[in-house]
């Protein structure tokens, strides 16, 4: 029984925190998101050099071959600083290629993903906003040894910056006949862009596919169970990143409560302020435990993984958005001004809630998986 991080992992955490503190303070982050791309390609490349992007990718392809448990440490830190980057998206694309791609496919795409040159993303949802297999209606039509994709993918994270899309498409009549294709930006008929976002540190976009011809060597050998394992992973990674964001939101509000004087004493003296903060702490520590365990289970290939992920995501989807609201409320008048940082975390809460399934989806999933 060991529910803690190794010394190496703690060193990595310190390294990432130092990097982000120096390069991506919240003040800096506010500037970065004002740019067209919404992230800083220079910092992205430096993170790639430090090996953080390829951390979980195979060593043979330029990665470091480590587990998601180690990557967790990076994500908690990017969450803390609301760091804008296509990290989770790129990782999911790479994971798809690693698990369902041939050696040739891995060699073709993974090195570019690991070294930061290519930004990847996973495109599953369509207009129906349905994470089940029946939500995937984009048909892969066979035509002369190629597969033609025509339609649109919605709510695609980092769509406007991605060079590589791992696209879920319908491969047959069976409800679960869904597979994955790799589509590259710049190919004929591929158009993608960002949409106006509430949380400027996280961009969603749309991918339009207009008679895009995909050669067989760009099809991955995934079935619906495989796609679902990627959705699970996405939910786990988003939840892990939220742990960091939530801890920072709690810190910022706690600090405010210590500093802000009203009626001659800090507002943090009042139970009406301190008790909600204590409740936030209890929630954060609890979904932290849930997501750590889920990520351990993913790494260990344990059957409990999907259930563990859904429990964590249901908990965080239900509680963190309200924590953001509570944080703003406890700040009083200034909390909702653009100038104060707490509102950035409120927005992160709203972005996070539906990502890779909201609470309703995950409660239903728990039931489908044989849980309650």
């Amino acid at each position, binding site marked *: 029984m060991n529910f803690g991080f190794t010394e190496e992992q703690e060193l990595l955490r310190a390294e990432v925190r130092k990097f982000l503190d120096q390069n991506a303070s919240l003040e800096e982050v506010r500037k970065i998101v004002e740019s067209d791309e919404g992230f800083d390609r220079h910092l992205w490349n430096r993170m790639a050099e430090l090996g953080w992007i390829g951390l979980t990718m195979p060593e043979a392809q330029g990665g470091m071959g480590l587990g998601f448990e180690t990557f967790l440490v990076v994500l908690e830190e990017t969450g803390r600083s609301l760091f804008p980057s296509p990290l989770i998206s790129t990782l999911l694309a790479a994971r798809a290629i690693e698990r369902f791609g041939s050696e040739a496919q891995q060699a073709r795409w993974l090195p570019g993903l690991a070294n930061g040159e290519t930004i990847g993303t996973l495109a599953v949802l369509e207009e129906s*906003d349905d994470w089940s297999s029946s939500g995937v209606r984009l048909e892969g039509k066979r035509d002369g040894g190629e597969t033609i994709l025509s339609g649109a993918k919605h709510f695609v994270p980092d769509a406007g910056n991605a060079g590589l899309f791992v696209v879920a498409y319908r491969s047959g009549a069976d409800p679960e006949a869904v597979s994955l294709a790799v589509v590259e930006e710049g190919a004929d008929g591929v158009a993608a862009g960002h949409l106006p976002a*509430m949380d400027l540190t996280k961009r969603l976009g749309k991918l339009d596919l207009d008679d895009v011809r995909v050669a067989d060597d760009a099809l991955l050998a995934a079935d619906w169970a495989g796609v679902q394992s990627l959705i699970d992973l996405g939910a786990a990674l988003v939840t892990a990143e939220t742990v960091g964001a939530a801890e920072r939101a709690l810190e910022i509000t706690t600090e405010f409560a210590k500093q802000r004087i009203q009626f001659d004493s800090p507002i943090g003296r009042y139970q009406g302020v301190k008790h909600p903060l204590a409740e936030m702490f209890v929630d954060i520590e609890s979904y932290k435990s849930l997501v750590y365990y889920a990520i351990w289970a993913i790494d260990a290939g344990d059957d409990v993984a999907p259930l563990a992920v859904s429990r964590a995501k249901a908990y965080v989807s239900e509680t963190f958005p309200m924590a953001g609201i509570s944080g703003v409320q406890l700040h009083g008048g200034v909390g*909702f001004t*653009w100038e104060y940082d707490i509102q950035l975390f409120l927005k992160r809460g709203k972005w996070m809630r539906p990502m890779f399934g909201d609470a309703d989806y995950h409660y239903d999933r728990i039931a489908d998986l044989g849980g309650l």
Partner: protein
Amino acid sequence: MDFNLTPEEAAFRDEVRAFLDENLDAAESERDMNWFGGWLKKVREKRWVGFSWPKEVGGGGGTVMQQVILKEEMAKRKAPPLGSCYMGLAWVGPSIIQYGNEEQKQKYIPDILDGTYQWCTGYSEPDSGSDLASLKCRCERDGDEYVVNGQKIWTSIAMISKMMILLVRTQTDVDVKHDGITCLLVEMDSPGIEVRPIKNMSGGAMFAEVFLTDVRVPVENRLGAEGGGWKVTVSALANERSSIAEVYGLTRKMEELKDLARDTERAGQRAIDIPSIRRRLQRAEIRIESMRLNGQRFLTKQLKGEPLGSETSINKLHRASLEVEMGELAMEITGSASTLMQGCDEAPEDGRWAKFALGWPEVVIGGGTPNIQKNIISERILGLPKD
């Protein structure tokens, strides 16, 4: 108890309904600013702008019940506002009617009713917080003018206002801090006034900071007596006690939210049919209904001539949680599209719900945070000791 209308009240309700039938059937596409201008003209002709004000100043002289009926019918039909000088109608006009001299009434009231320009209210200051009377904005008399120096904050729509109703301190050596406060009517283009909008988390700005440096205000622009400004303010504040209007605003928003839940499909079913969503909508609706009825209980007190006290905090607390909850519900209903903002086809109803979900603090915190409302109830009504 009797919730029925008298024949006279029913007749007035029918009059309102007939007016709405006639004037609200314009197609949605026609509802642009021109349409709104026409609407304002028509309701002005009916004397429904400033309906509660005395007829001799140009108001409608409506009874309390008639005001309630008018507000209710307007809200039910989602009618646009009655008048366009928002702060003038809510705060400034009543103060001028009660404390202004004849000249002031003639100069300002017609423009407020016609919506010729906007007013703002210079009450709060950075350090005064909920303790309004502790204001410090300095004011010295110099001949026929007052000279004002200080800062105001949380001043709504200051950036688009032509006039401001301003509270200043004309006397500092007072025993009671409520004394020595004076109320001035100030032109916003006076030299020495700087307005800095406070950007909110939606990226817009409803409030502003107002900096006043050697601003000169003619003595005739004083409202009420020198040192008598607190009374002027309190009467304006009392005017805001009734929550009837708020309830109909919420009712209207609730109807729109239910429509959203009916029209949004989530994984093959209507959002309104998802049990967790439906139950939360139901709970919210019951709370709004209880606010409506609470409001009627308060109204009964008012009709009997009893003053309203801290019980108005009841509906304020309901409203605070409902504004948050309804925004969150809109987010959950619209799912992955919920955080898309205005300016793209994919954003539900062009991002208005996303904006709504960021808009509660101005409403909730503006009226005193929930914690303050709970203190008011527990200390003033339940008699628990102060913290």
